[in-house]
């Protein structure tokens, strides 16, 4: 039985309808997530339109939604064999000038020194779990629990693109000028989103966005 679950990692995935054309897939482990993403790219179900990753789930959108049982059957057919050969994703190094306005307050709130906060923020390898809030904005998994803080009670009206920030259990980087409630640590000159490259009907996301869901990155402190 255990062997069977390994070969068919999607058997325990929960399906819930969302709206008239969507299904949310819950209870995804990493194997199931990878397997489904790959199958959607290679042999998607009929009338499939697009998918959107969430922190714990995945939304599938359809032009014409299949019956729940047809989607269940599609998922149950996906075999896990290939997922054992996980491709090693390249880890992007993101240079950060740590001069953000909330560094001091975060140090105070966590009982750490500013240097320790920076050391803890630059230590882990982060994974882009999902993107959203604005085009190109990555929600990064891997933030040290010592830096898990509630969002600011009064959000800022305007945050510049390139602002490196933390919010809740995620680290992130602001991708367009926008209001926002995350704690600002510093800034990077990495350009996350280039709208001018999105003109026409573009094919390659890599030309437009610095990051994609699933990517790995590390922050590196540099002088301003």
């Amino acid at each position: 039985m255990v062997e069977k679950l390994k070969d068919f990692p999607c058997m325990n995935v929960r399906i819930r309808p969302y709206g008239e054309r969507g299904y949310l897939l819950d209870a995804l482990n990493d194997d199931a997530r990878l397997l489904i993403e790959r199958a959607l790219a290679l042999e998607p179900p009929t009338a499939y339109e697009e998918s959107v990753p969430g922190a714990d789930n995945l939304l599938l959108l359809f032009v014409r939604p299949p019956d729940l049982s047809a989607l269940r059957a599609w998922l149950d057919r996906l075999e896990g064999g290939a997922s054992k050969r996980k491709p090693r994703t390249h880890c992007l190094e993101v240079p950060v000038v740590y001069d953000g306005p909330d560094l001091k307050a975060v140090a105070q709130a966590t009982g750490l020194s500013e240097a320790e906060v920076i050391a803890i923020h630059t230590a882990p390898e982060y994974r882009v779990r999902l993107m959203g809030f604005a085009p190109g904005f990555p929600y990064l998994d891997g933030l040290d629990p010592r830096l898990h803080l509630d969002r600011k009670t009064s959000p800022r009206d305007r945050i510049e693109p390139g602002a490196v920030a933390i919010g809740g259990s995620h680290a992130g980087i602001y991708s367009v000028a926008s209001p926002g409630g995350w704690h600002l640590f510093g800034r990077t000159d990495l350009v996350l989103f280039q709208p001018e490259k999105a003109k026409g009907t573009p094919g390659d996301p890599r030309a437009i966005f610095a990051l994609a869901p699933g990517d790995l990155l590390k922050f590196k402190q540099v002088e301003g």
Partner: protein
Amino acid sequence: MEIIEILSTGVGLSIQDRGRSGWRRFGVPPGGSMDRSSAQAANQLLGNRPDAPVLEILMQGAKLRILEDTWVALAGADLGCEQAPWTACAVTAGTVLEFPINRSGLWAYLAVPGGFYADRWFGSASVDLRNGLGVPLQQGRRLTSVAGAPSLSLDRVGRRVLALDQQRDFSKPMQFELLPGPQFDLFTTEARDQLVSARWTVSARSDRTGFRLQGPELAVPESIRSEPVLPGSFQVPGNGQPIVTMGDGPTVGGYAKLAVLREADLDWLAQCRPGTKVSFKWADLF
């Protein structure tokens, strides 16, 4: 050919089509006309593709000069233009179309033969200023149509009217149909009942990203981990007042979602002016 000159933009003017698909996973909202069915009706009147770019006119104040003899179709909000909504008319060069008062609805759609020629971002001509897709239309700007004349045969016809049963009267009080949202189970029975028993008022703090509703304060469950959000979703933040996500709204969010509007009803809600009273009922699914 150059077909329309903008004499005044009024409250808001932009080029829109049915929006973009395939880019939500990168955080790009679907966008598109706020009332897609009216935009489609305007195109249908001229025999255009349903997704041809149209001019979206918000409330009153816009003034447009016709530069060539052509056809123009109007649908959606009634903004007091001499040409009635839900009609297509032959217009002569030099005609000025004015939209002086907001009689019903919020968004009017103006179509020209073949649609407007427009730049595209992520495959769509829909302008999304918040996300840097496109530039605002300015006074003096000249817009170009793809074709000179409608693709329909309109010999000796000066006017077309949309079938009456396809026209919408946005001054009529509406009860919209809801599907349960992904976090329906997290809300109290009382909150679920209040959503459909109360009358809600469309707040003035509504825009292309979301329509806010004012009414009884709903009991709010814990925030959830960030997950995908579809247009039409009723997100309930800490103050217990639902925000209905619109087409330009964020693609992910961390507020629990109590309900989702049917897509056709979202078009109609988008036409409800601030102060409009609306009510809801659960769709008959069970």
